[in-house]
């Protein structure tokens, strides 16, 4: 037996000649592929990585929009971080962000979409199509329109206060966070509904028939069979809604500009205010970095959730 000492044990009984050859079914490296990958690499580096790294750097400088440090800014080390950890508004902002993203996005929009999809599953085709079309229109509306519609209907003499019986009631002022959350859920629910409608159609008819034959009520079938089978769609929808909500700066800013007080001052709004209202671009960039971190954590969390099988 002439087995080389450092070679792995030849348990397969391969001929010596073959053991030295590269396997055909394993990935092989072709140098020419580097040339083909180069344009994408350059674009990724130039348009994504460099700006991100630069933004991270800016977070540790005293750059301002106008004034003394607008041009002659410098690296200030942990000064911005020090401000951040003592900034009460920042902590409030984090809490509001979580509330907004999870409450109106991950939970609110997903739940609303799911309920609509289930409700429309067995209804008349015409009604289903009209309702579906309306929900999709709500989703495709630009954030400006959504902001105006909701602002107009929730402030004094708007339709919601009128329906509540008091046209002079400024609901948006009184319950700013709630209304902003509702507006966001409302605008995203159409998308969630489309996802759930598709997923519901993929639940095999025979499985539902089997549950029915075994004597399960409609509610039991829904909660014990249908919803568990929609699990991966629910996770996907929650993730998507989270990401879409996180980026929904426009809606909140246009409706309340973070107010009244700081009641709707979510992180993107706070970052904008710091940079463009108070001119602290450096600090604003640091807040932006925090947003990126939170997004990354949330994204990772949902991916993990989706990977878990049970």
């Amino acid at each position, binding site marked *: 037996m002439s087995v080389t000492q450092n070679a792995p044990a030849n348990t397969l009984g391969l001929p010596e000649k073959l053991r030295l050859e590269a396997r055909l079914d394993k990935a092989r490296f072709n140098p020419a592929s580097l040339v083909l990958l180069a344009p994408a690499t350059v674009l990724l580096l130039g348009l994504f990585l460099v700006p991100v790294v630069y933004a991270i750097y800016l977070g540790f400088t005293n750059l301002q929009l106008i004034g003394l440090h607008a041009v002659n800014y410098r690296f200030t080390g942990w000064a911005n971080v020090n401000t951040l950890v003592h900034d009460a508004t920042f902590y409030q902002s984090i809490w509001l962000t979580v509330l907004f993203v999870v409450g109106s996005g991950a939970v609110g929009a997903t739940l609303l979409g799911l309920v609509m999809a289930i409700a429309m599953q067995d209804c008349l085709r015409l009604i289903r199509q009209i309702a579906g079309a309306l929900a999709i229109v709500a989703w495709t509306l630009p954030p400006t329109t959504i902001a105006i519609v909701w602002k107009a209907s929730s402030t004094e003499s708007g339709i919601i206060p009128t329906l509540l019986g008091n046209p002079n009631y400024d609901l948006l002022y009184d319950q700013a966070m709630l209304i902003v959350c509702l507006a966001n859920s409302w605008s995203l629910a159409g998308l969630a509904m489309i996802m759930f409608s598709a997923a519901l159609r993929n639940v095999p008819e025979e499985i539902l028939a089997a549950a029915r*034959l*075994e*004597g399960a009520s409609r509610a039991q079938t829904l909660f014990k069979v249908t919803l568990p089978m929609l699990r991966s769609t629910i996770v996907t929808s929650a993730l998507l809604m989270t990401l879409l909500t996180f980026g929904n700066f426009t809606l909140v800013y246009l409706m309340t500009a973070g107010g009244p007080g700081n009641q709707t001052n979510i992180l993107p709004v706070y970052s904008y205010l710091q940079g463009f209202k108070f001119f602290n671009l450096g600090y604003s960039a640091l807040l932006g970095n925090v947003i990126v971190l939170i997004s990354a954590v949330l994204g990772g969390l949902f991916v993990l959730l989706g990977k878990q099988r049970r």
Partner: protein
Amino acid sequence: MIRFENVWKVYGNYAAIYDLQLEVRDGEFMVFVGPSGCGKTTTLKMLAGLELPSFGRIWSDDKDITLLPSGQRDVAMVFQSYALYPHMTVERNLAFGPTVRGEPKAEIAERVKHVASLVGLESLLRRRPDELSGGQRQRVALGRAMIRQPRIFLLDEPLSNLDAGLRTRMRTEIAELQRRVGVTTVYVTHDQVEAMTMGHRIAVFNQGRILQVDTPANLYRAPANKFVGTFIGSPKMNILPAALSATGGSVDVKCLGTEFSVSGQYLAGKDLPSSVELGIRPDDIHWTKDAPSRCTQKMQGIVGGVETTGSETFVLVNVRGTEVNSKFPSFAPIRIGQTVDLVFDPVDLHFFDAVTGNTLRKDPPGQSERSEFRPAQPIN
């Protein structure tokens, strides 16, 4: 007893089921067989309550169950796709029905164990459907249907997704299980071998109608028409064109160059059509060198194809332009292009009306006694 009374199922202006009349006796293993699209699954679904008949009534003993919701019919069904709940373990799949019906937990656990041992799933209770093989999934589906000792047990082509070997084994197992448990069973299949081997009685469907309901032996020996004759039995019954002429008490038959007469009592009906089709099974056409002496009628043809299965050889012989399949002894020295002599006994012939396809033959004497079905005694 389950009874279909004038049941119709109409889709648009197409009738999937025409005026169905059928009785399924208690404890019986009834098989619905027929080609795809013949209405057998639709009939099963109407019995399960998954489809509503357009007209007619379905009775369970004296109770009208036509419009009863499927959950209240006390039927259990095994679907072709098994329809297992993919997110539940085998154990929870089995326990789902009793759980949603609110039965006591201890009792459910007991029953799950009992059923699991009945279908051989004890070691797989913690697995989920996607971790099981086709045969194991099939057992789960079977166990899930059996866990509640239903009034009727429905199976919709449960073996069609299994490989040939497993299918043969499951065939015996299901039939044996049904005999042991003794529950009224309706089994849908398009495979006549399954139907013949499993059923107490078989209902042959074609194009929305039941053509014949009888025991496997009677279907084979006395098919009511050409469709049943060719559908039941493998390889298929040969259909040969023939001319009839009645002379006194006997009937003369001319078929592919051979002429013979059969007794008139043998054929039903007063006005025999002049042109008929003769049905004869490949097993009943013999090679002259290997024929029983009672075979008197002879025809000659040229071998067009030879199929050997090992235990027997089927030879396609071209007799005056008609392909005749006949059984030869295994590994008979036969070559394509050779001229062979075939013989048969007119007693083995089936006579079908060339227009309607209905049989003209009375039950041959000595074979007409019905092998009476006796339901199994349930053991519980």
